[in-house]
């Protein structure tokens, strides 16, 4: 007797809801993040920085390499040099825009590489289990015994200065972190019924990992990886700041901050500009990652 009204509401709800039911998980996540003002503002700022870095040669900027001894360290707002000039008389606006090209690549590429390597390692360790899991995860543990800044600097210090070495060093720092997350989500999925069903219907381990596991764990690993971009940007620029990354005269925010340090008594605010760019990119990626995380948490 009590079941009749209950099933009636369920039927009604089902009939009223086909529009929302038809939408898939990622479409829902997309809609939720599009409605989040903070995330969209950050995405817009990042889009502007990325576009200006890509389109730098066509923006009618000064030559970022051309210096002049007579117009060194001009202040912000000098006519012709809206953001002043650096210690060699090069236009700051041009160098900041061009600087984005290298800074964004050396900051983001290590996370992308580590995402690929770490996800593969973690899924294999989590799905295969046993001795292979022990071997992979105990190796990962060793890298956890180093604070990440120390590890990055130790590796790139040992390899020597250079863009490629700094990318390698940061990738090595992030692979263990992503592997650990990938392994733990994979272990959570591997014993579920649909994996068992796939195995029973004759799917091989690679097919299961690629088709059935990957789709279910990629979201969580992706969100974690996006949260690392902010750290990676700061560390990559930090390595250049120490003199371990980019070499002069290349425009790159960390290196610019380093070479301008000597100028803080002459023209302090121009010297601080490159760091503001790193800060802007880093905070936008952090907020965007937070927004993505809460958009993907459908239970809320």
């Amino acid at each position, binding site marked *: 007797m009590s079941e009749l009204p209950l099933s009636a509401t369920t039927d009604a709800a089902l009939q009223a809801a086909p529009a929302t039911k038809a939408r898939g998980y990622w479409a829902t996540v997309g809609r939720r993040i599009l409605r989040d003002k903070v995330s969209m503002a950050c995405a817009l700022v990042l889009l502007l920085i990325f576009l200006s870095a890509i389109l730098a040669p066509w923006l009618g900027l000064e030559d970022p390499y051309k210096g002049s001894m007579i117009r060194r360290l001009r202040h912000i707002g000098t006519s012709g040099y809206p953001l002043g000039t650096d210690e060699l008389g090069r236009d700051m606006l041009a160098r900041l825009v061009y600087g984005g090209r290298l800074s964004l690549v050396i900051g983001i590429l290590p996370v992308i590489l580590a995402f690929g390597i770490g996800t593969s390692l973690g899924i294999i360790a989590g799905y295969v289990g046993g001795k292979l899991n022990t071997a992979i995860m105990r190796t990962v543990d060793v890298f956890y015994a180093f604070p990440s*800044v*120390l590890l990055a600097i*130790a590796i790139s210090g040992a390899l020597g200065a250079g863009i490629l070495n700094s990318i390698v060093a940061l990738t090595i720092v992030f692979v263990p972190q992503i592997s650990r997350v990938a392994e733990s989500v994979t272990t959570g999925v591997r014993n579920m019924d649909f994996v068992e069903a796939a195995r029973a219907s004759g799917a091989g381990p690679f097919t299961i990992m690629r088709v059935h596991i990957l789709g279910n764990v990629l979201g969580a690993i992706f969100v974690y990886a996006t949260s690392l971009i902010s750290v990676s940007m700061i560390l990559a620029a930090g390595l250049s700041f120490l003199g371990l990354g980019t070499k002069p005269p290349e425009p790159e925010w960390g290196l610019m901050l380093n070479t301008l340090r000597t100028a803080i008594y002459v023209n302090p605010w121009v010297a601080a500009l490159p760091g503001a760019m790193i800060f802007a990119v880093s905070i936008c990626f952090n907020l965007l990652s937070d927004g993505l995380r809460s958009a993907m948490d459908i239970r809320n």
Partner: protein
Amino acid sequence: MLAYTARRVVYVIPIVISVALVCFLLVHITPGDPLVAVLPADASQELAAQLRAAYGFDRPLPVQFGLWLLRALHGDLGNSIATGRPVLAEVMRAVGNTVTLAIAAAIIGFTMGILLGLIAGYFRETWIDKLATSFAIAGVSVPHYWLGMVLVIIFSVELNWLPAVGAGPNGSNSWAWDWAHLRYLVLPAITTSVIPMGIVTRTVRALTGDILSQDFVEALRAKGLHERGVFRHVIKNAAPTALAVMGLQLGYMLGGSILIETVFSWPGSGFLLNSAIFQRDLPLLQGTILVLALFFVLLNLLVDIAQAAIDPRIKRG
């Protein structure tokens, strides 16, 4: 508890050996000859071979590692190539300054983080929460070496209140707890404190929110407990996790101080590491990284044991 402690200590041994292996291998992934720093450019083949034998670089790698580990266990990390002084003594002197900096930063960062986190968690979804959360996100997103520069610009260059670099008047390296020295600590300590401040705020906020939404809090309130009493329960429940996070942060501050120490010319382990890298002083590089990593492992161990000691929910069996 004793059994748990003993087991945790035993688990640490393979980690310590692997850490030593990584530090050892760092020198051997280095392109070029490790002797390049001491050897004059026009050195003869015989001299190079002689030096290589003297430093033991001519033996097979596993043998070199075994000998190096054995000596390290006796506290002998070799001599710095640049200065000729024992590496361990140089590192320990520098680590003292880094510990001073890290503890000062921890006091600032943890106090601020706990306060902001508790307030934000208690007043969830209000403007107070939003303000504290933005502060925390700014703290974890700011390139701290740049923040150091900005603080120097404001407080040293523009206002001339505090010294910009160094750890004491007249370039002195010996630390003392008086105002003349403390003035030098203010800016580096504030700079170091922003990341732990942000992370502790976020952790404590999440913990407070979770605990306040649990049934037992409602029961406490229903029984008529005043808000101060409820707060005490929140703190007691949040303490173990918060403690673990803070212990880890202290380790990051000790090991990750190189950028800040470079900005402020603070004579600590990071500064030492920086000069070791650029003078290609490989024994010093190896030794500094080993000591810092071992500090980090030890700190993690202490945190685990402390957490198990104060939190009855952690299984010690």
